[in-house]
């Protein structure tokens, strides 16, 4: 497989695709003028709010900033186990 990648190109960890991934994250932060670490604080606060209402599976909780055209979208995914009320 390594040999095939070497011959035919586009391995997923090439420097070109690494640059693309880094660019994506960087530009989402640039466009929102989002300081480093701010997103992590938001995540903790969101998690605390949801946990007031639900027991959840913390392991599978996901936060993601994605790009749609030139706008960013915050995608949060909580796996709920049961309601707390």
């Amino acid at each position, binding site marked *: 497989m390594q040999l095939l990648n070497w011959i035919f*190109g586009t391995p997923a960890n090439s420097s*070109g695709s690494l*640059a*693309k991934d880094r660019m994506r994250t960087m530009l989402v932060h640039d466009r929102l003028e989002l300081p480093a670490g701010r997103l992590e604080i938001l995540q903790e606060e969101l998690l605390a709010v949801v946990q007031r209402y639900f027991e959840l599976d913390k392991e599978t909780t996901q936060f993601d900033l994605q790009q749609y055209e030139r706008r960013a979208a915050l995608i949060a995914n909580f796996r709920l186990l049961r309601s707390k009320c």
Partner: protein
Amino acid sequence: MSGRVIVITSGKGGVGKTTASANIGVALANTGASVALVDMDIGLRNLDILMGLENRVVYNLVDVVEERCKLRQALVKDKRMPTLSLLPAAQTRDKTAVNAEQMKKLCIELKNTFEFVIIDCPAGIESGFQNAIAGAEEAIVITTPEMSAVRDADRIIGLLEARKDEIEQYRLVINRIRPAMVKSSDMMSVDDVLEILSIKLLGVVPEDEEIIISTNKGEPVSGTDNTRSGLAFRNIARRLRGEDVPLMDLDAPNSTWISRLVKFFAPVARV
């Protein structure tokens, strides 16, 4: 007449704004259009060199704005292309020598006479950039496929977006693409850059030693046949005029039978 005022800008320095201005200007003039090339990089005059007109500069843009001469007197006519004129920048002044209002007025005067007014913008996002875009209705954003250049292009696009009322359209030119490096995935591809920036593509220019040679001669590559970068700039000029020109095949010249064979099998092998 009301011509089109198009500013060529980038954010990051040294990515090819002046090269693109000269080549697009020459290519447009060769299609028969009348073109004014305006050097707004005040204090760092370059466009006259690329055009081979440095010995014919008498007055400059700042002289016009400060009314030391008429616009007509400052325009340097290119003898090789009678429909092309250059309005040189001042070399001994700085970016504060012209303000946005003066630039708007100048652009209105220029587009009364010329079908295309191409403005070569200084690097950066400060006053020099703001003044250079002041009279423009269209922008061409230049980047190379490198991270720092793309990041700065994104910043410029954000600033252009915020001025939608004045800048009606802006498109991207990706300069200095190296097909071999894209192929080996060691350079972001055209599609990668477009996806990241979400902007319309105007053209792609390959890395080409001929550009350095042509600068030495003062004859932009788009004016001569047989160079790949020249063809790329001529295609850009045709697209600016509304023609639907497909992107050129970047790996055509070294397309040996082996590379064709690899291309043929590559999609199968990747599955």
